[in-house]
């Protein structure tokens, strides 16, 4: 998982492989560092994300829910494969993020 | 008294002849000569080729001239034959037309389908292409003059049997067997005291009809071993015992040696059942060799498609045309012969569903062959056991046509009990059914109480120890990239988290004991695979059909290593024999005199079975006879409450698969994880 922060307002996180029970905690740790920084936008680069489970989704939902408590943050999900997108659709959380092909 | 018809009437190249008797078929010694009789519905001519032993060419070929044929039967008496030094074969001519199903070829010398002994494979594994020229298989003439010394088939009630499934060669071929003639009938005879000591009372022999161990032989993938047809499910002669299984086979004494074995098994109270293969022959498919049937009357003996191709319901290339009247009669003659001349007590029919298909392969409602066998007077007391499925998709476990005579290898019992044993939840109800003879499959009103031959392992599949050692088959040695053999084994390698290697091995041995507990306390007829009583392993190979080596052979050193398993099996068999309630339920008579049902289910609390769970108590009751089998397949230990007994009866522990199983003395037994135990009750002898 790569994590790039730029200009205080924008962060790009590249997700690779599996975002599951084992790796979601790491993502959560990364996202915690953004709390209260005034960040406005998070971009998840998902071209190489093969798999996501509810633990992974929970971490992403967290990024929006908790970080948005003070100031709203926009979350973009880029180039997620169909199977990953299906997980979001099935859980009714697809509209919660902005999906970009 | 001199018979007026016992002199020759014809002569051909110095051979004295006479038109023969059409019945019986085959070569029969008669006054002054030998009567040869064989039929073919489609042949135009037939000749008899006579050889001196081991000679490559016949010394005479005698045509059956006009007057030597009645109907479709060619019959002739040849006088002054030295039958001990004679081999014979037939030459048939007729149409050779693939589409019409005719394969006549006058260049082929064919085995007599009714031949009583066959030469060419007199010593197991000798006489292959590699040793020089592959020896031809030839018919020989047998004098049926064995001294039975008063022996007769035992007619043991079916429900009293404990069957032991055995490969004649595999039983003693291993150097550890300590016998004089390893791998032979004579050697099995040497093991009779062992079999008696174990307590079984019937042996079921894998095919002993003559077959060709060199059929399709090849080297193993690493080039170290010769792979052969070891199991022998590929018959060359239905009436002939396998010469290579006899220490005296090279002398042509195989029939006598086998009869001696049968006689002595009987003398020790053991019945003899044969695994018979009437679904196909060794002639294979369109590319197979001419051995016998194909050249005699292809269209009669085999099921053919309308275009002349072989139907393959057996999975081996051809399908014997069992419900053709000629073939049906041959099968009947064959079984009558084994029952009467060899005193065989019963038969297990390989892929028996094929015997219920008509000549086009369609399943029949009342297959005449099966009905014939069920009601034949000679076979009237023989056990008839069906492997109630075939390779063409018929699966008839529970529905095999029975006429109250046929029973079945219960493949469902095998699968259900395996799953229960390894701890799959929800197998309690089916296991309870299986332990009372599977009435959910075999309606006792029509099938009686022993339609089910219960088995957990058989030659086809894992051994019991391997069942609890391997998750997957290990068949690479068979040279088919591990594709052959079943994938559905319901096995379990007994690896539990945190266990050491030693603990894992201990669990495996205990699981074998658990399996034996269930098998030997189930109603129906138990069948034990030879070697399971001492934890024999085939190193995970679940299809050892081609392994004539220590993968298949019983390693008798395991008997000492696993003495505890052997003694456990012995104890269970002894219990079964001494307790009528474990063999014959009195369900058709209602409750016992004490008011108990003959079979009842229990859980950790008496009379409360949890059919979703992994713990089961089964109580079997006779009039003064109580046996309780407690089975805990959970990974946690549990107390099992015992059912109350009538006044004066007390439970005591008969055996447990784990020493830590404890009778707490207050009507409860603590059963350790994955353990089984048996309680029995008798009247307290004290006043």
């Amino acid at each position: 998982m790569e994590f790039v922060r730029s200009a205080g307002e924008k962060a790009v996180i590249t997700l690779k492989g599996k975002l599951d029970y084992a790796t979601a905690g790491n993502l959560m740790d990364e996202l915690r560092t953004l709390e209260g920084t005034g960040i406005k936008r998070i971009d998840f680069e998902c071209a190489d994300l093969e798999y996501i489970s509810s633990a992974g989704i929970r971490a992403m939902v967290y990024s929006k829910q908790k970080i948005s408590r003070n100031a709203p943050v926009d979350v973009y999900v880029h180039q997620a494969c169909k199977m990953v997108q299906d997980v979001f659709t099935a859980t009714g959380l697809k509209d919660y993020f902005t999906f970009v092909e | 008294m001199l018979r007026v018809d016992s002199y020759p009437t014809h002569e051909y190249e110095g051979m004295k002849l006479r038109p023969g008797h059409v019945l019986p078929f085959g070569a029969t010694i008669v006054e002054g000569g030998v009567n040869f009789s064989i039929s073919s519905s489609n042949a135009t001519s037939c000749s008899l080729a006579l050889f001196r032993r081991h000679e490559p060419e016949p010394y005479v070929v005698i045509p059956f001239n006009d007057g030597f044929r009645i109907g479709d039967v060619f019959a002739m008496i040849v006088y002054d034959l030295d039958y001990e030094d004679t081999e014979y074969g037939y030459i048939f001519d007729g149409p050779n037309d693939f589409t019409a199903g005719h394969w006549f070829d006058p260049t082929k010398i064919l085995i007599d389908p009714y031949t009583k002994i066959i030469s060419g494979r007199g010593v197991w594994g000798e006489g292959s292409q590699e040793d020089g020229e592959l020896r031809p298989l030839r018919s020989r003439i047998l004098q049926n003059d064995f001294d039975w010394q008063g022996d007769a088939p035992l007619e043991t009630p079916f429900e009293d049997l404990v069957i032991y499934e055995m490969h004649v060669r595999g039983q003693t071929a291993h150097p550890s067997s300590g016998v004089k003639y390893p791998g032979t009938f004579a050697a099995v005879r040497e093991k009779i005291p062992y079999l008696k000591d174990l307590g079984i009372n019937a042996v079921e022999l894998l095919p002993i009809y003559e077959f060709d161990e060199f059929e399709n032989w090849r080297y193993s993938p690493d080039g170290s071993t010769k792979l052969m047809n070891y199991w022998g499910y590929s018959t060359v002669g239905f009436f002939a015992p396998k010469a290579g299984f006899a220490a005296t086979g090279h002398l042509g004494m195989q029939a006598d040696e086998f009869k001696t074995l049968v006689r002595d098994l009987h003398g020790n109270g053991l019945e003899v059942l044969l695994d018979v293969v009437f679904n196909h022959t060794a002639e294979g498919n369109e590319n197979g060799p001419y051995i016998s049937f194909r050249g005699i009357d292809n269209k009669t003996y085999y099921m053919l498609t309308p275009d002349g191709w072989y139907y393959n319901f057996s999975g081996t290339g051809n399908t014997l045309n069992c419900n053709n009247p000629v073939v049906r009669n041959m099968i009947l003659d064959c079984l009558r012969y084994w029952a009467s001349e060899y005193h065989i007590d019963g038969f297990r029919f390989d892929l028996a569903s094929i015997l219920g298909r008509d000549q086009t392969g369609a399943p029949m409602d009342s297959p005449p062959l099966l009905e014939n066998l069920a009601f034949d007077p000679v076979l009237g007391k023989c056990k008839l056991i069906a492997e109630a499925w075939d390779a063409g998709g018929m699966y008839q476990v529970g529905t095999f046509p029975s006429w109250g005579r046929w029973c079945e290898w219960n493949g469902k019992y095998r699968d259900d009990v395996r799953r229960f044993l390894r701890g799959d939840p929800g197998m309690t109800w089916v296991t309870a059914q299986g332990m009372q003879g599977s009435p959910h499959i075999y309606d006792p009103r029509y099938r009686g109480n022993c339609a089910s031959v219960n088995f957990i392992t058989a030659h086809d599949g894992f051994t019991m120890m391997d069942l609890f050692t391997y998750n997957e088959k290990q068949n690479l040695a068979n040279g088919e990239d591990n594709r052959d053999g079943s994938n559905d084994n319901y096995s379990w390698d007994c690896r539990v988290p945190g266990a050491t290697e030693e603990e894992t091995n201990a669990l495996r041995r205990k699981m074998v004991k658990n399996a034996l507990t269930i098998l030997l306390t189930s109603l129906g007829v138990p069948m034990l695979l030879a070697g399971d009583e001492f934890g024999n392993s085939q190193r995970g190979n679940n299809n050892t059909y081609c392994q004539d080596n220590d993968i298949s052979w019983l390693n008798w050193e395991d008997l000492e290593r696993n003495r505890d398993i052997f003694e456990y099996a012995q104890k269970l068999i002894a219990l079964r024999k001494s307790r009528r309630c474990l063999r014959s339920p009195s369900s058709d008579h209602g409750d016992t005199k004490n008011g108990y049902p003959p079979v009842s289910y229990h859980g950790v609390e008496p009379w409360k079975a949890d059919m979703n769970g992994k713990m089961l108590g089964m109580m079997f009751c006779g009039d003064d006879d109580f046996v309780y089998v407690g089975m805990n397949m959970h990974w946690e230990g549990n107390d099992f409450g015992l059912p109350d007994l009538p006044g004066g009866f007390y439970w005591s522990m008969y055996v447990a698969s784990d020493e830590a199983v404890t009778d707490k003395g207050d009507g409860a037994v603590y059963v350790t994880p994955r353990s089984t135990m048996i309680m029995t009750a008798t009247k307290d002898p004290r006043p």
Partner: protein
Amino acid sequence: MIQRKEFYATFEAIAEMMDFVDGMTKDLPEKAIYDLRLASEEIVVNIVNYAYPTGDGRLAIAWNHDPESGTVIAEFEDSGVPFNPLGYPAPTLGVPIENRNIGGLGIMMVRKRMHDVRYRRAAGTNVLTIEYRS
């Protein structure tokens, strides 16, 4: 292919459980591999988190794949507190919000992806069965 394996019901053992599942599904279509992994992960994580509040326990997976019909039936079994995940929402009290099962997300995904999901309480064990046809 019908296999059974037992594990400690601990977070550390989940990787081993997922390896077992991956081994069972390796010859299936991509979508089936995904769906079965997802369902299995949700179920085993749930068991590890909630089945044994007072200590270590075990978790067993029995995997049954019939290649002819393409049907997979897998059973997940624990001997922990009786709990039917199909019957009630997952317990959330006392769990930090980020660990909270958002609206029973996991079990919902199991139900959506599998053709059938069944629960039974069996003599001391919880058994959750999933059925999938690829």
